[in-house]
Each structure stands twice: as structure tokens, then as C-alpha cells.
């Protein structure tokens, strides 16, 4: 745990002794094994690890799409592992923003409507919707694709619309699952710069699961997972992105195998 952040910032996400066990009766797989970490407000946290290390499982548990076997996850002082099923939807709506590898935009809706939908679900009125989309669109430079349909957009444009949809509700935490996974390098770079923008300008807290060391180098801190356990962590601190990238590559080669392949 980073002492440097702990002193200055309040903790947004607390993950305590989380275990996730799949299967049953003699065929147990421990996807998460006693995972502990905190995320502070305004952090841009990366989670890296080889395939099967439990990254996505961890993300699913935090996002309440999946449930933990034991342990606690607290977001903004709400223990999501104790939430009743009926409150989960509301929790996701109010506290979380999602960005997926395959965008998950609704293809019948225009970009504008896709972003607006996140707000209409929360019951925000049209006046505010207009205002908020206007400011987000300017910041993420998506004005020219707002009135296009997903099938008319490039992957990068789609993902930036998805990012806008995730941040428009001012969620406490934005969860991104391999957001650059389906993008070319140029679009990746643009998206990641957007993320930095969201993080710096709007003070959004981001938690990004990624395979890609380049994507990870935009984060302020990176947790490495292996076999369901936290293997190590890297803090960017005052490093330049280039230096941070080299450090990440070092850890990745230490971890060996899969992640190195993906670089």
C-alpha cells in the first residue's frame, strides 16, 4: 500500500481479504486468493497480470456483476458484498461507470443517445443532459461523432463514446475492462489521453484492467496479479511515462509468460 497517497487522500475503494472460489466438490479453483488493496479518490489504478490471474474476476466482483466467496469490498463506505440484490442496480447506477473491451454501445442508438441513456436511467432531466453532454463532448473531442451510429464509428470513436457514457453520471469509480483491447495503437493512445484527462480534469477515479504495458504506463499506480494474488505493485510517482513503461516491462518479464507476449 502506498503510504504516499494514504496520507493525502481519502480512500474510495477498500478491498479486504477477498476470495473467489469457482467450482465445487474436489474441483476448486481459487480465482482470487486473499486480495487486499485500497484505491484513493482521484487515482488511476491499473491492474495487470497474465491470463487467468483473476483480473477480470476482481473487476466483476467490484462492479457487483459477480459476488465474492468471502471478504469485503467497500466503495465510498458502502460494503457492496452486503448489498441486497434489489439495491445493486441502484448502486451501479449511482457509483460506477463502465467501459468494456467490446464497447457495449447500443447499436440502435446514436452516440449522443448512448451517452444520454446513462443519465435518463438515473432520472436526470433533459436540460441537464444537454449541458453535461456538451461539456463532456468538448473535453473528449467527440463532437463530430455524437450524431453517428455505432456502426458508423471507428473502434476508437466508439470507445470514447463509451468513456463519455461512463463518466457522464459523475460516478465515484470508473471501471475499465481491457478498454484498448480492440483498438489500434493510435486510437489507444487517444483513448488513454482521454482517460488521463478524465482523471486530471474531472477528478475521476479510474480502475483499469489491462494486458497492455503501454496502456498501463498511463496509470498512476499498477497492481500485478498472479494466480489470484497480488504479486507486486508499481507507483509512477514522479517518473516520466517512458521510465514508468520500462519499469512495467521489467515486472512483466519477471512475471513471465503471458503478459510479455502481449506487449
Amino acid at each position: 500500500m502506498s503510504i504516499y497517497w494514504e496520507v493525502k487522500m481519502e480512500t474510495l475503494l477498500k478491498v479486504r481479504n477477498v476470495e473467489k472460489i469457482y467450482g465445487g466438490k474436489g474441483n476448486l479453483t481459487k480465482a482470487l486468493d486473499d486480495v487486499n488493496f485500497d484505491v484513493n479518490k482521484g487515482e488511476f489504478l491499473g491492474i495487470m497480470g497474465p491470463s487467468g490471474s483473476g483480473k477480470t474476476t476482481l473487476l466483476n466482483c467490484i462492479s457487483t456483476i459477480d459476488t465474492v466467496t468471502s471478504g469485503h469490498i467497500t466503495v465510498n463506505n458502502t460494503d457492496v458484498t452486503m448489498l441486497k440484490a434489489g439495491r445493486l442496480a441502484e448502486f451501479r447506477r449511482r457509483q460506477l461507470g463502465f467501459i468494456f473491451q467490446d464497447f457495449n454501445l447500443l447499436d440502435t442508438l446514436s452516440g449522443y443517445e448512448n451517452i444520454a441513456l446513462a443519465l435518463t436511467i438515473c432520472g436526470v432531466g433533459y436540460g441537464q443532459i444537454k449541458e453535461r453532454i456538451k461539456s463532456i463532448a468538448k473535453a473528449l473531442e467527440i463532437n463530430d461523432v455524437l450524431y453517428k451510429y455505432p456502426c458508423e464509428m471507428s473502434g476508437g470513436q466508439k470507445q470514447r463514446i463509451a468513456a463519455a457514457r461512463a463518466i457522464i453520471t459523475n460516478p465515484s469509480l470508473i471501471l475499465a475492462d481491457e478498454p484498448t483491447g480492440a483498438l489500434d495503437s493510435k486510437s489507444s493512445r487517444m483513448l488513454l489521453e482521454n482517460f488521463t484527462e478524465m482523471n486530471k480534469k474531472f477528478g475521476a477515479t479510474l480502475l483499469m484492467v489491462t494486458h497492455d504495458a503501454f496502456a498501463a504506463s498511463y496509470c498512476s499506480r499498477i497492481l500485478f496479479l498472479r494466480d489470484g494474488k497480488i504479486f507486486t505493485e508499481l507507483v509512477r510517482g514522479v517518473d516520466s511515462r517512458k521510465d514508468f513503461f520500462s519499469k512495467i516491462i521489467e515486472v512483466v518479464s519477471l512475471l513471465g509468460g503471458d503478459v510479455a507476449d502481449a506487449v
Partner: protein
Amino acid sequence: MLCKLAFRNVRKSVGDYAVYFITLMFAVMFFYAFNSLDAQQAIMDLNENKATSAQMMLESIKVFSTFVAVALAILILYANNFLIKRRNKELGIYLTLGMGKGRVAGILMMETLLVGIIALAAGLFLGILFSQGMSLITAKMFEVQLKEYVFVFSSKAAIQSIIYFGVMFLCVMLFNAVRVSKQKIIKLLHSDVENEKVIGKKTWVSILMTVAGIVLIIVAYYLIIKGMMIMYLPLVMLFGIPGTFLLFAGLSGFVYKIASRNKKKYYKGLNLFVTRQLTSKINSTHTSMALICLMLFVTMVTLGASSGVSAAVNKEAGRDIRFDAEYYMRPAEVENAGGGVAALEDYGIPVDKFFKETAEYARYDSDVDMLADFAEYLDVAQANEMAGNMDVHSFAGAVPVSQFNSFLRLIGEPEVTVGENEVGAVVYNEKLAENLENFSNDGNKIHSNGKEYTLSPDGIRIVNTRIMGAASNAMMIFIYPDADVAGFELRDVMVDGIYIDGVPKEETDQSLQALQSQLREENPERPFSGFTTALTSQDSSIGLRVTISFVGIYLGITFLVTAAVILALQQLSAANDNKKRYATLRKLGTEEKMINRSLLKQIVIYFLIPLAIAAVHAIFGIQGLMSMINMAWYENVYQDVFWGLAIIAVIYGIYFLATYFSSKKIIREK
């Protein structure tokens, strides 16, 4: 192995097969039940007249069975298509595992066969049960008793059903085999990823199309209201059908435009999602929606009108005929013999032996043009009826008062007296009588014979002068002073009679008819051109009624079920494609309640649009038909039409509910 795999597949995907299976089973049941009607009527105690009309019904059912079979075949192919689409991935996996296309096609054929055989057997079983109940209904409609209760089984109908549906299954099997052998693995494996193309035409094009469609439809309606339906039927279709297609083609853009006008409402809850879902669905299925709409329209008109017409026929049969038999005598023969009754006696019919009482009167064509003189006092349908029937001039009938009074005496009506410049009138319904009274009360005169007649208000009689059916008469017959008919053209002489007392009327009826057919063999030169008895007319009208009702129900329900099943399958396959969209909504934190409500809204609207447009069409269509029927026959039959429409509502509703609940289940799947 193949068999085992096929069997397991069917068992595994019972849920998917349900719609297909139920549709098949229902089709077989329905087909068998209607085609076994001949076996059913064999057990009924039908007299000769009724047997003839039953034959007429069977013939019509036979003709329409081909239509029904074609509609059902299309339906089965469509349902099958839905089923295959849902299993593309599974088929792709077989192929990647190295199974040959031939064997995959074999599995599919096996499955089709299995489901087909079970559905056929179950359908036949249900059909046989259903036909038992139908016998009772048929017997009741023919107003006869069953000889005794026997279990009816028509092997002919069973074999016919097996052959027809066997051929259909064969088609489905071939279709599936061809489909599989033509598919690429990659497409099968990724079929669930493919997105519908959603970008439609430009909004203004859509709006233009909708408006053009509505204009065309209004023109068609106008033609119907103007009472020109019969004459301009091709024109009505020429405007109505393309109008409907155009309306649906532009509908998605039009609906979107309207829904998104009010931004506050549009950007509220899932409204924008529902709107977009609906419009994209309508956009990609507008042709089949238009077809469904037309099909529903035909259903409503056949079910509605057939119950209306059969009620009208019923009322016509039940109308108050107060004599038993009528002869239309040839004027020349009557003149030679010196009277109608005398002519019959000369021919060999002992009139006194059969009839207690007779009346005879001559009927002329007057020179009163009903269309020209009474136009303002008739409603459009009546005027149209006349114009359609008799070119442009339609002359009222004329009868001499003294002769006609003998007929009035026969049926127990008060006699008519007319002064020198007065006429009476005979009409067959109250509406017409009222129209004539208004005419007279307004001080109008009737110009005829170079004279001016007043219509004596006491001289209007509402009676049935013909057994043949009121429509075979001129709409109005004027009762002239005896001397004044001399200048008119003599049409025929009517001889009407009441059978003798003491013997059952049926017996008299039969022996009279037997005698006449015997006489006819000896001497084909009969002195009369027409002969009908009240009993014959009743029996044949029962037959007509049963035929109209059965054919209406047969066709109507087939069309209805076809339309409903296609809509249901479209929605179910949409739910299948939408699974991912709903999953996204859930991740965004949408409440389950909200999602269900949005699904319900979509399905309700999707089911209602074609129904509503078809209903508006049908209001005009049935109106057009009924105004003619009300004209030709008796009064109002609208409430009977209502029952036909109630059947539609129930069946449609069942399919709607089934669709909603299955869709809900599908979108919950992971």
C-alpha cells in the same frame, strides 16, 4: 448415433421447439377437423335440402383447404427458420469438430422428422377430439339431431392431413439441409455477433412515404364510403394495398420523428431506448408487418363479415313469411287459362288438394324511376344498390289494388284502399317505409302515367311478398288503382298459397314437390318460371349460413394464427438478438422492473400497430360489405360482427401474452 444426437438435441431445446411444435400441432389439428366434416355430417339426420347445402359447404371447405395448406406451409417454414437461426452456433461447432456437412444436415433432418412426427400424431389426436365437439356444433347449426352419438373418425381426412403435412415436413427438411450445406462455418459461429443494419432512410423520405401512404388509404376509404366498393373493388385495392405498404415503409422514421419531438419526454427513463428499438425493428420488418396488417384485415373482414352475413341470412330465413309456397307464372299461360290457379290446374296440379287458400296478382314495372324521384330520401347504400342492380333507371314495381288485396287477405294484413289519384306502397323494411313517409309528409307527389299521385300514408305496408328473398324484388312496389296499371309492362303473375290444415306442412311440401318433378318429366313446358316453398328456402338458408360461418372461421382463424405467430416469432428472435443490449442496460444499472416495462411497451406497440391499422381498414371494409348486406337483407347485424371480432381479440391476446413471457425469459438468459 445420429438418431441419438438428434433425439438429445430435441429434448435439450424443448423450449426453443415449443413455438414451432405448438404451431405445427395446431395446424394439423385445425386442418384435420375441418377436412373431416364430411364424415361428421354423415352421422347427421339431414333431409334432402340440408344434405345439398351440406355438400355445398364441404366443397367450399375443400377449395379453401388448399389456401389454408399454403398459408400453413409458409408459416411452418418461417417458424423453422427462427429455430435454425437460434442454433447456428451449435451447428458451427459440429462443423469445426470435423463432422461433415452431410451428417450435420442429417442431424437436422432427423430432428425435423422427430418433431414433425410427434406434432403430427399429437395434432391428429387433438384434431379427432376437436372434431367430436365440432360435430355437435355443426348439428346444432343445421338444426338437426345427431342420429346417435358415434365416435367420428375420418380416415380420409387423416390421410389427407398426413400427406399434406408430410410434404411440408419434407420441404422443411430439404430447406434445412440446403441451408446448412451452403453456410460458412465462420458465419455460423459468429451469427450471434452480427448486428442488424439500423440506419434507415432519411427522415423526410420516411415522412413523405407515410403521408403518401395515408393519402392513398384515405382515397380507398372514400371510395368505400361513397358506396362504390363493389363497382370499384379493384380500385379500392389499387389504392389500399400500396398505401398500406407505403405507410409501413415510412412508419419507422415517422414514429421516430414524432416520439423525439418532445425532448423532455424522449429523454426520460428508457423511452429513447424503446423508441429506437421499435423503429429499428419496424424499419427492418416493414414489409412483413404490412403483410401481417393486410392479413389481419382479411381476418377481421372474413370473421366479422361472416358472422354478420350469417346473422343476416339467419334473419332473412326467420323473417315473417306468412304463406307456404309461391309460383311466378308466365303471363301468356295465365291469359290462356284465364287465371293463375286455372293454369296450374291445367298443368296437372290439383290446387285445392294442397292449398287451403291461394291469392294471385299481377306485377308490372311502373314508370317511376326510384333513383331519380326518391334520391334525396334514400341513403347512399340504397341508392347505390339500385344503381348497381339496374343500370341507371330502376323502376318501382306496380300492382293493381284489388288483386293485391287478395294477397293481403291471404296473409292477414289489412287491405289497402286507394283513391283515384292515390297510390299505396309495399316495401320490405321499416327503414324504407320511413323514407317513403318522409317523402310524402314533405308534400312530394309521384309522377306516373302522366298523372300526379299522392302517396297515401295509410297505404304503406311492410310485408314480404316473396319467399325467394326480398332482394329479388324491386325495392318499392306501388299499389295503383286497378285501371291505372294497364299502360305498364306486365312482368309476371304471382300465385301464393297456404297449405291445407290437418296434414303436417313438411308432408304437403314433399308430396307437392314430388308431384311437380313427376309432371315436369312428362311435360317440361311448365306454366310458371319459378317456384319456391318457405320450407325449402329455410333449409337452404341454413346451409348458406353454415357454409359462410365455417369458411369464415376456417380462413379467418388460419390467417389470424399465421399473422400472430409471425409477429410472435419476430419478437422472440428480436429478444434473442437483444439479449446483449439488455445485458448492457443491466450493467449500466437499469432496474429489472424498468427493463421489463420497456420490453412490454415494445411488444404491445409492435403487436398493436398492425392490429390498429388493420382494424381501421376493417371498419371501412366491413362497413362497405354490411351496407350492402343490410340493404339486400334485413336490419342491423353489427352486433353479430362484434362477436367475430371478439374471437380475434382473444386469439391475438393469447399470442401476445405468450410472446411477452417468452421474451422475458429469453432476455434473462445469460
